[in-house]
């Protein structure tokens, strides 16, 4: 292999092997901190050695062996000070290598531990990105606009809590599993959304690194839990949104709404994948959960040649189904947007105005009202609503879009 290929080989190994290595070391040594540090050291060693020695025939095995040695070195160093028992266990640890199925199971344990409900949501997100996705602490800190030291502390504190409170390293019992899976999916959807609608004045409007990472992790969960409908639903939802990424932001960095997007730039392969997943779930004939319904809505949008050709009655019917599962005002708002296309802006506006007490602080409430008022020719009220939306919006591309729409009111 030529020298040029070494960085690519390391990066590929990092993508494919990081979670596996951290998971198997955590199981072997019973300590997330040791596992994380040893995995990081193994990759640092690869960066040093592979350019000269060449990429080993089985990079994963090489990295696992190297990481295990690093972990044992650290434990021996620490054991010189205390805990002779651990030393004894290590010396006699001649477990055969885990078969493939069991290793996959270990990655699942790692994910469930990082997304444990006893950890704060932001901690679950940070820990999952570090331990499962292998992002560095500075990368995670940048992604969430947090100081690096603060992110470091959050992760350190989480690892300490897992150890001291004995958060178990295992796949939850059958009775807890549905709630715990939905907890994991919530973490992944949050990572995806932060990438898709990045907040903060100095961020890129779309953080492709985060959306890509969320999709990669969801694909991994899907290979581990292929029977779970909501896992398939979330993956379908993400790829159908990701497929429109390029069309969603204009050359000048402004948000392009669905009706104005150049549909020829949508990613056909991702759309095909999403549609396939949605069809698979429909065929399962099991009542769909939230992510599956959202995926189905996005499948309707991505099946249409343009906005007018969209099957809006189907979209509204799907939102009706979603409202029954999730009666939140945000779902009602999105339903009203579809109603505007089916029954006209006046009907939609009446529905939206009822949501004011609960959504007054939400920029999309005002942005949606502004758009409907504009379509009804009520310019002055529309302008006030755009002003309210711009004041509340956090994403630079959305602010640019709302500002242009407002200024076009004349």
């Amino acid at each position, binding site marked *: 292999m030529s020298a040029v290929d070494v960085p690519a080989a390391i990066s590929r190994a990092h993508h494919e092997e990081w979670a596996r290595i951290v998971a198997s070391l955590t199981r072997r040594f019973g300590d997330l901190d040791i596992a994380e540090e040893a995995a990081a050291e193994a990759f640092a060693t690869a960066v040093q050695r592979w350019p000269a020695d060449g990429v080993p025939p089985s990079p994963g095995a090489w990295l696992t062996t190297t990481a295990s040695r690093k972990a044992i070195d650290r434990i021996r160093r620490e054991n010189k000070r205390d805990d002779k028992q651990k030393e004894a266990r290590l010396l006699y640890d001649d477990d055969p290598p885990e078969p493939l199925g069991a290793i996959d199971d270990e990655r699942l344990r790692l994910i469930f531990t990082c997304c*444990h*409900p*006893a950890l704060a949501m932001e901690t679950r997100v940070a820990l999952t990105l570090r331990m499962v996705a292998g992002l560095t602490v500075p990368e995670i800190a940048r992604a969430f606009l947090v100081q690096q030291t603060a992110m470091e502390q959050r992760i350190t504190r989480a690892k300490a809590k897992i150890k*001291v*409170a*004995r*958060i*178990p390293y295992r796949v*939850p*019992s059958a009775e*807890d599993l549905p709630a715990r899976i939905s907890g994991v999916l919530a973490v992944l959807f949050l990572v995806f959304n932060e990438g898709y609608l990045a907040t903060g004045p100095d961020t890129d409007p779309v953080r492709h690194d985060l959306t890509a990472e969320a999709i990669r992790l969801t694909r991994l969960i899907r290979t581990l839990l292929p029977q779970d409908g909501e896992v398939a639903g979330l993956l379908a939802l993400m790829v159908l949104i990701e497929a429109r990424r390029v069309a969603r932001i204009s050359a000048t960095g402004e948000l392009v709404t669905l009706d104005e997007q150049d549909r020829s730039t949508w990613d056909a392969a991702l759309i095909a994948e999403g549609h396939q997943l949605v069809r698979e779930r429909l065929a399962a004939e099991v009542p769909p959960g939230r992510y599956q319904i959202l995926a189905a809505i996005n499948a309707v949008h991505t099946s249409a040649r343009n906005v007018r050709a969209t099957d809006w009655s189907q979209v509204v019917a799907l939102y009706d189904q979603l409202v029954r599962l999730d009666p939140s005002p945000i779902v009602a708002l999105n339903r009203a947007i579809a109603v505007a296309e089916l029954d006209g802006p006046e009907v939609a506006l009446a529905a939206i105005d009822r949501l004011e007490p609960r959504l007054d602080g939400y920029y999309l409430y005002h942005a949606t009202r502004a758009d409907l008022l504009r379509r009804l020719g009520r310019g002055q009220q529309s302008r006030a609503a755009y002003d309210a939306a711009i004041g509340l919006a956090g994403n630079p591309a959305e602010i640019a879009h709302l500002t242009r729409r407002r200024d076009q009111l004349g």
Partner: protein
Amino acid sequence: MQYLVSVIHDSAELATPEEMAAIDVFNDRITAEGHWVFAAGLAGPDSATVIDNRRDEAIVTDGPFLESKEYIVGFWIMEAADLDVALRLATDGSKACNRKLEVRPIL
């Protein structure tokens, strides 16, 4: 592994007879399952006294070490294999005593 499960409430009023009956049922169950180590109710924070004898002279202060709207009105010590088990017990315990619980590992 043992956990301190503290009962958090904003008044030191005793449990109602219904709550007391539910707590008894819960205690019987966790005793039978081997999780019960100890349990007790506490008098209100007004009855607390803080003593600090780290320096030359013991200083006695009337009242709890921390004034707060909510405080610990009782506790369990439970034996549980891990936090998932402890949280499941505490979920049922909170329902039984009709109070908020805090779960903390004992080192």
